[in-house]
């Protein structure tokens, strides 16, 4: 039977199942196949904080959404075209996001009376009329998998567990994905259990064959590779890109990387990744707590390493005092905050942009810290290098504000040429800089206001630094009122004077009257929304802040040159507050804190409303 192949320009798939069903792995593999095929893509994993919530319940649902296309895309997509529902809970939890007419592939084996009751279904939605507005493909995934693995010497449980690979095979057939890499992956993943490896490969292939033979699917789809800029590409998540960026910063600065960290969602993967790369001279230290993590990083910085600590919001709260010590001792330090929903423990696996004011001001005293926020998962690489550049050049702690959406989301990334990476090498001070051969640890570079950096082991430059106020120049303890006022202002002036690039505005015709401004991870949804609005004929300009402190020098001029400035943030208006205070501009906020990224459609409507209200 030859089936029809239909061309599509883009597809959004959501895999959903129980936490134990392996949906993240399934999504990751489909993503890898899709990246390999050459589509542009963007992903949104969404999982509970509980490792294993009660099976089959709504809180236990884990999902992975993937948007892929034959053109460049900016978000994981608003509404799935296809939902793979491994159980009734997955169907119920995700149906609300599914537009009418979308495909539902449901694992009928799990739609038992007991499982239906668990999530409050009175009857079986696959058998009544309640799903008539969707295209339902009822597939007994579990029993088909078990049937396909009959010849294997594995337990029934292990056979059932391979059902996610059967589903992956089916979807890989449906969208004509290349399969070799997945076969290779499975063999490597289960290298120590060859039977399990073979079984998973067999389940994967059975899923593919099922698609080809079953009447339930009459059409398969083809999405041509995207026409992206020439180069070598790979798929990369935000946390991985950030870890690579830190290693790159270490290589480009010539300083060994020292990571002091305490495990916390959603930042732990950076610790995991960096701990694999000791051959780069990377030292990873899993500390006893968040405070020790940053303390050890600062101690390593004092010794001439590139000191880094990685955490999420609750950890930043604990590290505040040490960051202040870094501010006053003027040592390089990178604090990575992978923001998550707060306050307190909040929703650890959900995203938010609510730590901006904490990053800027969450310390005692006048304690200015530069803040850099990556815009996309792959931008985490470059943002990490930029944070290191600032930290090393200006001898200061730098906050790097990622978030859960960037951390776990992934996209294709054009791997940079080594020659294109900036040189951020450091010259340690080795000679006395004072009259009569003394060393003045707080004698500043007149241009950058950075202090010299002499590391222990340098003969003749022995000196003491600390948290007590220091006399300008000598660094000796000083309680002199005028000296303190001077030092407070010097530390502020140093941060204010950091060289950050001007804001660039995207305004194709140059005559838009409305500007949409964003920062950090909202870049994708905002840019996608702006595209939609422009497609509809309206004019709108867009700009995005990567440096939150100091702000680009032209920020005020840019904001003032538009009638209205719209600022979507996943908080209650933290950047809006700052911009209003600093530039006296009536920024219009759009604020939602649902633990999820904005949807392009949602923002497009908001932008259109602002335009229409002109």
């Amino acid at each position, binding site marked *: 039977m030859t089936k029809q192949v239909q061309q599509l320009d883009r597809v959004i798939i959501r895999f959903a199942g129980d936490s134990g069903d392996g949906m993240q792995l399934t999504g990751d593999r489909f993503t*890898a196949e899709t*990246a*390999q095929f*050459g589509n542009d893509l963007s992903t949104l994993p969404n999982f509970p904080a509980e490792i294993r919530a009660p099976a089959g319940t709504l809180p236990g649902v884990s999902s992975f959404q993937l948007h892929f296309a034959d053109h460049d895309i900016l978000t994981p997509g608003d509404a799935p075209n296809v939902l793979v529902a491994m159980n009734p809970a997955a169907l119920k939890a995700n149906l609300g996001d599914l537009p009418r007419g979308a495909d539902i592939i449901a694992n009928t084996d799990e739609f038992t009376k007991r499982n239906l009751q668990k999530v409050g279904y009175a009857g079986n939605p696959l058998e009544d009329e309640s799903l008539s507005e969707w295209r339902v493909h009822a597939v007994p995934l579990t029993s088909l998998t078990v049937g396909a693995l009959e010849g294997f010497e594995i337990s029934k449980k292990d056979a059932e567990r391979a059902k996610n690979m059967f589903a992956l095979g089916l979807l890989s057939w449906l969208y004509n994905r290349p399969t070799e*890499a997945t076969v290779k992956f499975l063999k490597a993943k289960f290298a120590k259990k060859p039977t399990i490896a073979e079984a998973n490969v067999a389940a994967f292939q059975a899923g593919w064959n099922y698609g080809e033979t079953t009447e339930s699917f009459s059409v398969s789809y083809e999405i041509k*590779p995207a*026409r*992206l*800029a*020439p*180069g*070598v*590409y*790979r798929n990369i998540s935000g946390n991985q890109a950030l870890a*690579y960026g830190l*290693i*790159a910063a270490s*290589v480009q600065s010539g300083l060994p990387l*020292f990571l*002091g960290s305490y495990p916390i969602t959603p930042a732990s993967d950076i610790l995991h990744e960096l701990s694999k*790369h*000791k*051959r*780069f*001279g*990377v*030292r990873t*230290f899993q*500390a*006893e707590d968040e*405070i*020790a993590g940053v*303390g*050890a990083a*600062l*101690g*390593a910085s*004092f*010794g*001439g390493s590139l*000191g880094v600590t990685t955490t999420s919001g609750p950890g930043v709260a604990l590290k505040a*005092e*040490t960051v202040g*010590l870094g501010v006053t001792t003027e040592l390089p330090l990178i604090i990575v905050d992978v923001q998550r929903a707060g306050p307190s423990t909040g929703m650890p696996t959900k995203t938010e942009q609510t730590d901006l004011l904490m990053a800027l001001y969450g310390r005692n005293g006048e304690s200015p810290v530069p803040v850099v926020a990556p815009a996309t998962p792959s931008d985490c690489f470059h943002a990490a290098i930029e944070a290191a550049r600032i930290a090393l050049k200006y001898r200061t702690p730098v906050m790097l504000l990622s978030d859960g959406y960037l951390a776990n989301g992934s996209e294709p990334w054009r*791997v940079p040429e*080594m020659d294109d*990476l900036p040189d951020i090498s450091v010259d340690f001070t080795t000679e006395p800089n004072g009259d009569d051969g003394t060393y003045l640890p707080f004698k500043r570079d007149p241009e950058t206001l950075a202090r010299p950096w002499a590391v*222990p*082991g*340098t*003969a003749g*430059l*022995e*000196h*003491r*630094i*600390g*948290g*007590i106020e220091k006399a300008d120049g000598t660094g*000796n303890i000083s309680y002199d009122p005028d000296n303190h006022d001077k030092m407070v202002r010097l530390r502020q002036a140093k941060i204010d004077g950091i060289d950050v690039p001007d804001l660039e505005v995207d305004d194709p015709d140059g005559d838009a009257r409305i500007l949409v401004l964003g920062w950090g991870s909202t870049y994708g949804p905002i840019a996608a929304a702006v595209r939609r609005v422009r497609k509809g004929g309206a004019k709108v300009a867009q700009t995005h802040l990567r440096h939150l402190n100091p702000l680009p020098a032209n920020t005020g001029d840019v904001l003032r040159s538009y009638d209205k400035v719209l600022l979507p943030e996943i908080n209650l208006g933290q950047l809006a507050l700052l911009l209003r205070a600093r530039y006296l501009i009536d920024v219009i906020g759009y604020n939602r804190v649902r633990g999820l990224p904005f949807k392009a459609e949602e923002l497009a409507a908001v932008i259109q409303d602002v335009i229409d209200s002109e």
Partner: protein
Amino acid sequence: MSSTESLNGKGLALIPRTDTAQTMKDFKSDQEVRWCPGCGDYAILAAVQSFLPELGLRRENIVFVSGIGCSSRFPYYLNTYGFHSIHGRAPAIATGLAASRPDLSVFVITGDGDALSIGGNHLIHALRRNVNLNILLFNNRIYGLTKGQYSPTSEIGKITKSTPMGSLDKPFNPISLALGAEAGFVARTIDSDRKHLQSVLREATAHRGTSLVEIYQNCNIFNDGAFEALKDPAVRDDITIKLEHGQPIVFGTGENEKAVRLSPYGGVEVVRRSEVADSEILVHDMHNSDPSLAFALSRLDDPAFEHVPIGIFRSVDRPSYDHLMNEQVAAAAAEKGKGQLSDLLLAGDTWRIS
């Protein structure tokens, strides 16, 4: 024998040495010392300054890291590298420094509040990790810098500004705590006995790994005379148990001569010397890999200075954390070759678009 084992007992093996003769003067900074007149810290500072030349290390490879409290001003007065940090965090900061710079001799200066209250967590974890640090814990059993509140080593019932009716919490015994954390080197000395203090420092710096030295230090303003019994010539010899490796544990003079033996109830007990046979007297073995006897000895000074062991309770070698960490880094490079950034970025699934 691995290179780790070969470093055991050689705390200074990786620290560059100097050819130049040093004196105490070389280790005095130009800063005016600002402790209260009569403070025990002066004696400790002088003892450390006069001890350091003996190590023969390059001065620039010595770092003193401190937290907050009176004692934590210490680094300012030494002409080495120094970092006066924040309350309780010195062990964490020193860990990052020592782990990334095995060529440095890193001292941590801390007090009973800094180390055992706000920084208790960092202290126990430094001890269990065994980073190559020398932690000098100045114990004056009071909060000095905040002007006289009780500390985690103050005796129960202590009347202070914050406990006008007497403190309620049971104090920590720093030696017991350190042994409980399985520290490799644990010792106690006293500010007024420079010779003993320096002999303990000598052993502590030679130990590779974390060494904890508790120094009884008198705060003459808020807790004067806390250790008077150990200093008063009339009684000190009768209550001070000087622990010496390989020697039977006996102390006191004349009729008051006493000995330590194993107790039938577990632990150890103090008995009159005349009531015990030589063979029953416990011989101190600081290298005993089992910390139980050292722990039992540390309990002898409870409840209140009837007899107080000083000296080295425990000195046991095990690989230091910093060395193991650096070995892993070296092994990774040796095994897979030094990391190349372009290889890292291009590892895994890639595709080319032309």
